[in-house]
């Protein structure tokens, strides 16, 4: 297969990282990226964007549950039938 163009590389990024690119497309993808510095940077930034989102959100849940929310839940549950 001939090398892909920048637009096609951009469209196939997710499949590339999921390892689901068909073999012939994979070759064309690599052929383009090997010669296009702009697409190499873009590809790396696509991957880093996923990591950035995960890192930005990972510590948010470390906080304790606010006491008033614990009380609100337990009060609401106190009104629930037990059986």
């Amino acid at each position, binding site marked *: 297969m001939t090398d892909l163009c920048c637009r096609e590389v951009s469209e196939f990024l997710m499949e590339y990282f999921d390892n689901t690119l068909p073999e012939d497309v994979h070759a064309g993808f690599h052929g383009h990226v090997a010669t296009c510095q702009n697409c190499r940077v*873009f590809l790396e930034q*696509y991957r*880093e964007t996923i990591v950035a*989102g995960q890192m930005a959100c990972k510590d948010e849940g470390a906080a304790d*549950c606010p006491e008033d929310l614990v009380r609100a839940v*337990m009060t609401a549950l106190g009104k629930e039938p037990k059986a």
Partner: protein
Amino acid sequence: MNEAALTAGLRAVDEQVFETLVRTYGGRLLAVARRMLHEEEDARDAVQEAFINAFRSRHTFKGDAQISTWLHSIVVNVALMKLRTRRRKPEESIQDFLPRFLPDEHHAEHFPSWTEPVDVALSRKETADMVRKAIEALPETYRTVVLLRDIEGLSTEETATLVDTTPNAVKIRLHRGRLALRTLIAPHLAGAHA
């Protein structure tokens, strides 16, 4: 209290155990609800509703998944229900955040490299805050899928079921959402930090 004790207490309707569950997992569930709903009051309502739903459906918890996973799926469901019942505003187009191409199919812009590895940049609170705000700025259709797939770790199929669409539509939204998120965070990571 370990997972087995929590599971046993949950089934036995032990209030002490349920309070331990709320204290142990409430903070994490609140973070999930905040990410999806933004409004603090809505997020707290979602967590409260999730625990009530968990309590009501405690007999359906078989113990073949972790309690945290079970509670996580409940709060995600509740948050999605709340998103659906909100009055819908016309959704902003994602087009402006997607890469642009020249007639010869090359990128229309040059992408400067980011100045430092993303894990180093994200160790700073202000950068993490900036990325969270960028996620919040995504149009809701895309933000929800990015959150469920990349942040909450659900599969394409699970996400498709939750947002009532096809796996292929989830893949398209995820890819566009990631592209848009890159556009939003790139200016801050390409040389903004001295």
